[in-house]
């Protein structure tokens, strides 16, 4: 009985750890159902027909995101027709960053003519399940039939400042790898970004 209790405690503890660390490559992608800029809710399962999904934790205010907005649009336009649409998720608290409010998301999407869904993690419950820590932060998901699996985590490419000077387009390479039936290499990269903004406890 006592060992059962310990086991339960350990199990709960592990779940806690997992929740904090988020997902890794090869893990099942957490489901979400979040409000899109068009007023509808968008779920990961809505994309059951896609070969994969490019989830990008994003926002309005972060200069690193702004530097990548055009590239996010290009990636969607290039790869959505091939089965890999972009979904941008704004994880920021709009009280901390008013520029990242739902209304401002709609404005920014209109200004830039975003061709992809731009959804709001209003309760801030989704980004911790993924383990996202910054914007932009990419999770490339592969459709495995009954679920999506994380295939690549990290940066869009290796040069935020100058799209022309990119040497390694990590994300595009990862999508190409999956389409070719291979594993992305690298499957994990890092980049400088803005912290995800939450209210002080």
């Amino acid at each position: 009985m006592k060992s059962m209790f310990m086991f339960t405690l350990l199990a709960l503890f592990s779940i806690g750890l997992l929740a904090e660390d988020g997902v890794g490559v090869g893990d099942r992608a957490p489901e979400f159902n979040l409000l899109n800029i068009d007023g509808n809710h968008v779920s990961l399962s809505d994309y059951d027909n896609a070969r994969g999904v490019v989830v990008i934790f994003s926002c309005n205010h972060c200069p690193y995101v702004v530097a990548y907005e055009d590239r996010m649009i290009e990636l969607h336009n290039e790869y959505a027709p091939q089965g890999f649409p972009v979904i941008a998720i704004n994880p920021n608290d709009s009280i901390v960053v008013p520029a990242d409010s739902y209304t401002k998301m709609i404005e920014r999407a209109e200004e830039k003519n975003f061709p992809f869904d731009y959804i709001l993690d209003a309760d801030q419950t989704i980004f911790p399940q993924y383990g996202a820590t910054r914007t932009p932060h990419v999770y490339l998901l592969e459709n495995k039939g009954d679920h999506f699996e994380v295939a690549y985590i990290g940066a869009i490419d290796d040069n935020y400042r100058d799209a022309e000077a990119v040497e390694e387009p990590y994300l595009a390479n990862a999508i190409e790898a999956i389409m070719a039936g291979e594993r992305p290499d690298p499957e994990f990269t890092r980049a400088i970004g803005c912290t995800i903004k939450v209210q002080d406890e």
Partner: protein
Amino acid sequence: MKKLFLVYIVTFFFITPALKANSANDEIAIMDFDTFSPMLEKEDEYTYVINFWATWCAPCVREIPYFEKLHENYKDKNLRVILVSLDNPDHLDSRVIPFIENHNLKSEIILLDDVSANRWIPLVSEEWSGAIPATVIYNNSFRGFYEKEFKYDELEEIVLPLL
């Protein structure tokens, strides 16, 4: 002779403030990661507080006064505070230097100009996801990495036992 003296006076009063206004610029070294990285590996009597920030990063800007206060309070006790700006070098004159002057920053400031972040982020710390602010605190017997926004008391709590 008198004329020459006048020229000297005029020059002195006009040039000196110009030099002074420019001094922040002289103090900012722009470097790539490999040039910068020895600062993460010093083996001397100092305790180093190395903070990665940018002028556009709101939480960074909020905590910078605490790093300044730390520098002010403990610079005579073998503490070195180094503020590593990740601003775009194109914004050095338009944003970084005005920021340094407006906030009257006294700590050492470096502009890290290196886009190959996937290579160098883990060299700063394997724990670093890449979000800023981020801070390394180390000396000969201690090394800590913090991907967070600091309050002054938290900084002092870590640094004081190291001095």
